[in-house]
């Protein structure tokens, strides 16, 4: 009886709803999808990180125009401040202008490198959140994918950037051309479906969840900050380049210990290219497959290796924040966007 009386008193004071709310936590804003593009729409190109010359982005402009889009070249293209595409202020201002320009329906980053994290907290996403647009890139641009997902709840496109467009498409590797064409499909709202080969180390299963991810180093770099994505119930993809095995292991340890791997619905491992060699007399003794399976061994969601995402020609467009279905079986893996 005492308990019931106490309960009634609390509810009459309106304390129960508050207590419940505190347990559940604030409801996360529903993910906003930017509008898909139509022919004639404008795509802005900018350098939030490393520098790119006008020449570097010229093939991308040709291709984007060929796809039927209009291109707005940002002020940071051709700007250089040491390794950066302009000073922090210049890169912030250019990106801010693109975010706030209603005519710009998508922003393709010129290149990765380093620098997004230096401007992300200076950018004002108020207008962007009201009228979101597609932001395209990968590698260092993972900062944006993580931040847009976690802080703005806006979908974005993890894909190749201006620097990946070949000068002469007729002689380019068809794999590269196909990967670039997935950006066009993504922007036009085509449903994206991908396959990956059967890999012995895969863990079979099916998963449904929001797709998030990007560069492993950057995901670790986001740890502890407001931009670090909540991964519970989601499908995570990771890739990296030029890291030694011990560091790949250490980064997965961070994700595991930071609670980013235990509540996943599925894990997609892209390419780990140009792995820095071990010193000959002390080999790390585990490859990427072993490193990953060791970390997720106690969980039971599907794991797909050798997915076409990473610092390589076969780097397909992935919609971050959007619901996907992952099927991993003995024939291989399929990732399907749920429309």
């Amino acid at each position, binding site marked *: 009886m005492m308990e019931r009386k106490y309960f009634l008193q609390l509810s009459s004071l309106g304390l129960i709803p508050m207590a419940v709310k505190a347990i559940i936590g604030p409801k996360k804003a529903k993910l906003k999808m930017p509008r898909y593009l139509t022919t004639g729409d404008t795509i802005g190109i900018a350098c939030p990180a490393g520098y790119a010359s006008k020449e570097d982005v010229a093939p991308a402009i040709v291709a984007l125009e060929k796809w039927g889009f209009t291109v707005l070249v940002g002020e940071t293209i051709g700007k250089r401040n040491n390794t950066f595409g302009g000073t922090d202020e210049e890169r912030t201002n250019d990106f801010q202008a693109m975010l706030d320009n209603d005519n710009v329906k998508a922003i393709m980053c010129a290149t990765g490198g380093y620098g997004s994290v230096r401007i992300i907290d200076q950018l004002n996403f108020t207008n962007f959140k009201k009228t979101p647009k597609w932001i395209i890139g990968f590698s260092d641009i993972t900062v944006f994918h993580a931040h847009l997902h976690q802080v703005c709840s806006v979908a974005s496109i993890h894909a190749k950037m201006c620097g990946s467009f070949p000068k002469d498409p007729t002689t380019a590797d068809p794999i590269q051309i196909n990967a670039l064409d997935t950006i066009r499909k993504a922007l036009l709202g085509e449903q994206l479906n991908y396959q990956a080969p059967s890999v012995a180390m895969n863990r079979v299963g099916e998963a449904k969840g929001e797709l998030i991810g990007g560069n492993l180093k950057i995901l670790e770099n986001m*740890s502890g900050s407001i931009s670090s994505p909540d991964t519970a119930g989601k499908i995570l993809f990771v890739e990296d380049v030029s890291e030694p095995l011990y560091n790949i292991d250490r980064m997965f*340890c961070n994700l595991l*210990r*930071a609670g980013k791997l235990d509540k996943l619905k599925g894990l997609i491992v892209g390419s780990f290219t140009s792995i820095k060699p071990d010193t000959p007399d*002390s*080999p*790390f003794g585990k490859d990427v497959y072993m490193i990953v399976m060791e970390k997720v061994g106690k969980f039971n969601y599907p794991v797909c290796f050798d997915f076409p995402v990473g610092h390589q020609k076969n780097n397909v467009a992935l919609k971050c924040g959007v619901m996907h279905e992952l099927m991993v079986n003995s024939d291989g893996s399929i990732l399907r966007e749920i429309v």
Partner: protein
Amino acid sequence: MNRIPPYLKKGDMVGITCPAGYMEAKKVKACIKALQQWGFEVMVGKTIGSKSNTYFSGADEERRDELQAMLDDPSIKAIICGRGGYGLSRIIDDINFKKFTKYPKWVIGFSDITVLHAHINRNVGVATLHASMANAFNDPLQEKYVRMIKKALEGEGMRYKVRGNRHNKKGEAKGELVGGNLSLLVHLLGTDSAYKTKGKILFIEDLGEYLYHIDRMLLQLKRAGVLKNLAGLIIGGFTDLKDNSRVFGETVEEMVLRLTTEYDYPICFGFPVSHGVDNVPLKVGVEYVLKVDKDVQLDHLTYVTK
């Protein structure tokens, strides 16, 4: 307040273990000899000069079991790590600190051992010793610093005076000392092993990193709120730095000052904590007083109030 493990007396036992990278048995000989000359007994773990043919000094279980055994063995009064490398993150969650909490002892090391310092500081509340490890005893240039480990273990009050650096930000700070290797400090962010740094004096050092990468790590500390409420900041050595063909264009000093402009705590540069020759023992979790004026002085609080 963190508990201070008992200081060592002659005849006390020091354990040597390799919880991370591999180390040859012969590389630990100088350390054993010195510890014995100092009057300590030495217990050398099996991870030293093990049969491992990989990067690690042994399988995770072997490294973990040995560290666990040394933490639990009441006859061992201090544990000095053979060397760093990488490996503690793989075993830290499987270490049980129950006995160690009851009967704390000194844990000594740096670099990858930062994981132990931070984890113990955050979760166990026992002071540890950030200092050179067994491999440093082979280097005659480091003799001065190696001898300081003896003083630290015996509980001698220590005062470090360092010449001023034109980048220093003057001021005085009093607080618990925490810190270690920058790469490891950022690696621990988001996990239960990350230091709580509010009101504390933080020291950082690193080696072999690209300048842009140092910037990214410092920015991560800042974005994770680590730099915001410090009492003071000590920048140690950043040795063997690398740069790209696209030069970064800023020094470590400039990066630190840019990222801390809005904070008014004292900052000193070039403090002798590093992967280079200069590496003084620092007691993590112990209160210190940092004075950054024309010169820099770092004292144990107890030493100052004595």
